[in-house]
C-alpha cells in the first residue's frame, strides 16, 4: 500500500513539474481576451517566415543526424571492438564536447575563424572573411552540433555492442572474416541502437538554441526565444514553440512504431573477457590517423583555442571577478538538481522497470517527451504556469531553475535507473519480502545498495546536464540568480574574447574535474560489487 501511494505521489509530482507547464502554455496561447481563439497562430502559420524556419530547422537537424550517424557508428564499433590502441583515451576525448554547454564549441571556432580570430592574425583578413561566412550559417552550425552530438551514436553503439551475446559473433568467426560478421551480424543486431541514436540526435539538434543563436542561423527555438526575450511577445513565442512540440510528438510516435518492432531479445553479457576483437591489420594505420585527425579537429583544437585565447592572468582574475558567484551558483544548483534528479529518476525508473502502476508506459513516454522537448518550450511553459502573484515564492527564486532541470532531465536518470534495476535479479527483492521487509526497507536496504554504482552514474549525468544547461536557465532564471553558462552567454555579445574564453575554461574545469573523479569512483564501486 505504501508502495502504491508513494509511487502515485511521484507520478503526480512529475505531472506537476513537467506536463502541467506545457499544457498551461498551450491553453494560454489558445485564449485571447477570455475567449478561445487561434489568433496567436494566425500570424505564425501564414507568414512565409515560418517556412524558412521550418526549412532551416529541418536542414540543420537532418544534416547533423546524418553526419553523426555515418561517423559515430563506425567510430563506436572501432572503439569498442577493434584492436586500435588508445581506445579508452579516444572515447573519453570524444565525449568531452557533449559534456560542455554546446555553444562553447561555437565560441571556440569563432575565436579561431572569426573576423578578429586567431586565423586572421596568421592568414590575413581575406581568408577569414570566407571562413567567417561559412561559420555563421548552416555549415558552422552543422560542424559545431556534429562535434557536440557525435558521442551519442558513438556511445550508444558501444553500449549496444556490449549487450550482444558474444557467441553470436563467434559463430560467425567460424566461417567468415570480420567484415562479413560486421555487415551481416553485428550491425543488424545493434540496429535498434543506431535508430535510437538517430532519433536522439535529431531531436536534440532540432531543439538546440544556443548554437544557432550565436551563429545567427534562424531556427524555431531561436525564433521562439527571440520573440520571448526581445519582444516580450509571449503568444508569438508560444506559437513558434508549438511546431517543436508537434515534431517531438511525431518523432516519438515513429520511435515507438519502429523501434519496438525491431528490438531483438538482447541480454547483457556477463563475461569479464568478451567479444572478439576486430583485427585491423593493414587498416590500422590509416584508421588510427583518421580517428586522431578527427579528435584533433573537433575536440583538441577547439579546447586549445580557448586555452590560448584565455592565457592571460588578468583574464582569469577578471573572470572570477565577473562570474565567480555565477560559477558557485552553477555548482550549487547542479548539486541540488542532480540529487533530486537521481531520487526522482530512481522511483520513476522503479515504476517503469517493475511496471508497478498501470500508467508506467505513460510515465516513461512523458519523461522522454519532456527530454526531447526543446528547452525553450519547457522554459516558456514554466513561466506560463508559475509567473503569478501567488507562486512568486517559486518563480522569483532559484527553485524555478531546479524545477526546469527536473522536468527536462529526469528522463536520463530514470532510464539509467531502469538499467541498474534490471541487473538486480527480482529474487533479491523477493527474498527480502519473504523475510518480512516492507517496501521502503526493501528499497533502502536491498535495491539502492545493489543498484548503487548505476545510481552514482545517474547522479553524475544529472550533475553534468544541469551544469551545462543553457536553454531552460536562460529563460527562467530570476534576476541575480544566473548560472555560469548563462552569464557567459550574455557576456558573449559585448565581453572581450579573452574573458569569455577564460570563463569557458573555468566552466570546463568545473565540469570535467568532478566528473572525472566521480567516474573513477563509480568504476571502482562497480568493480567491487562484481567481484
Amino acid at each position, binding site marked *: 500500500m505504501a508502495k502504491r501511494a508513494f509511487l502515485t505521489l511521484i507520478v503526480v509530482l512529475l505531472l506537476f513539474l513537467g506536463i502541467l507547464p506545457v499544457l498551461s502554455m498551450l491553453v494560454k496561447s489558445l485564449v485571447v481576451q477570455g475567449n478561445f481563439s487561434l489568433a496567436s497562430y494566425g500570424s505564425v502559420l501564414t507568414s512565409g517566415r515560418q517556412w524558412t524556419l521550418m526549412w532551416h530547422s529541418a536542414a540543420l537537424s537532418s544534416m547533423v543526424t546524418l553526419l553523426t550517424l555515418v561517423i559515430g557508428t563506425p567510430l563506436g564499433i572501432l572503439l569498442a571492438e577493434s584492436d586500435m590502441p588508445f581506445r579508452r583515451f579516444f572515447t573519453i576525448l570524444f565525449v568531452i564536447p557533449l559534456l560542455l554547454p554546446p555553444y562553447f564549441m561555437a565560441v571556440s571556432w569563432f575565436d579561431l575563424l572569426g573576423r578578429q580570430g586567431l586565423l586572421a592574425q596568421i592568414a590575413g583578413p581575406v581568408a577569414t572573411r570566407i571562413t567567417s561566412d561559412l561559420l555563421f550559417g548552416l555549415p558552422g552550425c552543422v560542424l559545431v552540433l556534429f562535434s557536440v552530438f557525435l558521442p551519442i551514436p558513438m556511445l550508444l553503439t558501444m553500449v549496444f555492442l556490449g549487450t550482444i*551475446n558474444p*557467441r553470436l559473433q*563467434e*559463430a560467425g*568467426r*567460424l*566461417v*567468415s572474416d570480420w567484415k562479413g560478421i560486421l555487415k551481416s551480424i553485428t550491425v543488424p543486431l545493434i540496429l535498434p541502437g543506431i535508430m535510437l541514436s538517430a532519433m536522439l540526435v535529431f531531436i536534440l539538434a532540432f531543439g538546440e538554441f544556443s548554437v544557432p543563436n550565436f551563429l545567427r542561423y534562424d531556427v524555431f527555438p531561436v525564433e521562439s526565444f527571440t520573440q520571448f526575450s526581445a519582444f516580450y511577445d509571449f503568444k508569438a513565442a508560444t506559437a513558434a514553440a508549438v511546431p517543436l512540440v508537434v515534431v517531438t510528438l511525431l518523432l516519438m510516435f515513429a520511435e515507438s512504431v519502429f523501434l519496438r518492432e525491431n528490438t531483438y*531479445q538482447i541480454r547483457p553479457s556477463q563475461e*569479464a573477457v568478451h567479444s572478439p576483437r576486430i583485427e585491423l591489420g593493414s587498416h590500422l594505420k590509416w584508421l588510427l590517423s583518421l580517428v586522431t585527425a578527427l579528435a584533433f579537429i573537433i575536440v583538441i583544437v577547439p579546447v586549445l583555442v580557448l586555452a590560448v585565447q584565455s592565457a592571460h592572468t588578468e583574464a582569469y582574475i577578471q573572470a572570477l571577478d565577473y562570474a565567480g558567484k555565477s560559477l558557485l551558483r552553477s555548482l550549487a544548483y547542479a548539486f541540488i538538481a542532480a540529487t533530486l534528479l537521481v531520487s526522482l529518476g530512481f522511483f520513476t525508473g522503479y515504476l517503469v522497470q517493475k511496471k508497478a502502476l498501470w500508467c508506467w508506459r505513460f510515465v516513461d513516454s512523458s519523461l522522454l517527451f519532456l527530454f526531447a522537448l526543446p528547452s525553450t518550450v519547457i522554459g516558456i511553459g514554466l513561466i506560463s504556469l508559475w509567473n503569478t502573484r501567488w507562486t512568486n515564492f517559486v518563480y522569483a527564486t532559484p527553485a524555478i531553475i531546479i524545477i526546469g532541470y527536473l522536468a527536462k532531465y529526469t528522463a536520463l536518470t530514470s532510464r539509467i535507473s531502469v538499467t541498474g534495476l534490471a541487473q538486480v535479479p527480482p529474487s533479491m527483492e523477493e527474498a527480502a519480502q519473504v523475510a518480512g521487509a516492507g517496501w521502503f526497507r526493501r528499497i533502502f536496504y536491498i535495491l539502492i545498495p545493489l543498484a548503487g554504482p548505476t545510481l552514482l552514474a545517474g547522479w553524475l549525468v544529472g550533475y553534468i546536464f544541469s551544469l551545462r544547461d543553457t536553454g531552460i536557465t536562460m529563460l527562467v532564471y530570476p534576476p541575480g540568480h544566473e548560472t555560469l553558462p548563462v552569464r557567459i552567454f550574455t557576456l558573449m555579445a559585448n565581453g572581450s574574447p579573452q574573458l569569455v574564453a577564460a570563463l569557458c575554461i573555468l566552466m570546463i574545469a568545473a565540469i570535467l574535474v568532478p566528473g572525472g573523479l566521480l567516474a573513477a569512483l563509480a568504476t571502482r564501486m562497480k568493480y567491487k560489487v562484481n567481484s
Partner: protein
Amino acid sequence: MKIVELDSVSKSYGNERALDKISLGIEQGERIVILGPSGCGKTTIMRLVAGFIPPDSGIVSIAGKIVSRDGKIIVPPRKRGVGMVFQDLALWPHMSVKANIEFGLKAKGFGKPERQKMIRDMLELVGMLEYMDRKPAELSGGQQQRIALARALVLEPKVLLMDEPLSSLDLDLNIRLRKEIIRLHDKLGFTMLYVTHDRDEATDIATRIITMKQGRIDLS
C-alpha cells in the same frame, strides 16, 4: 594422422589455471566425449580448438597443421574447417533459418544455385525443410537444435565441436536428439568433440570418453 591434437596445452585466466598441460589426440571419425564437472575446463578446450582463444603454452594442431601455439593464433577460426554447436546455440536472431545456414556458404564464396541445393539437402537431412523461412524465435527448442546442427554441418567441417548442445532440452528430446546426432555422424563421417557433464549422455554418444577434473585429464 590425428585430426585434432593438443600437445601439453595450458591456459589460465588471471591467476586461475583453467587447463594444465593437457595432451590429447583425436582420430579421424571418432566421437570423443569430454566428461567432467562444471568449471573443469571443458568449454576452454573447445574454444582453443575453434581458435577463439590461444593457449598460453603448448601446441594445437588440426589435420597435422599447427593452428596455434604458445600464446599465438596461427590459423584463424574461419580457416580451420571446424564447425561448432554452442551451448546456447547462438542462432542469429535477425536471420531466417535459411539465412542462418547460408551465411557461411556465402562467406566461403559458393554461388547461388549451389547454395540453394546445399541448404535444401542439409535441411532435409535434419528434417526441417518446411521451416526454412522461419526466424529462430519461431522454432521450438528441439527445432532450434537441429538448425544449429545444420548450420554447423553445411560446410562439411573436418571437426564438429559440440558444447553441451542438449543440456537445455528435456530428457525425452535429449535422448531422441542423441540418436539423431549419431545418425548424422555415421552418414557424414566428420570427427566429433562433444562436451557434457551427463554420464548417460556421454556413454550413449561416445566412441571414446575422456574424463576431466580441474583442468587435467583424469586417468584414474
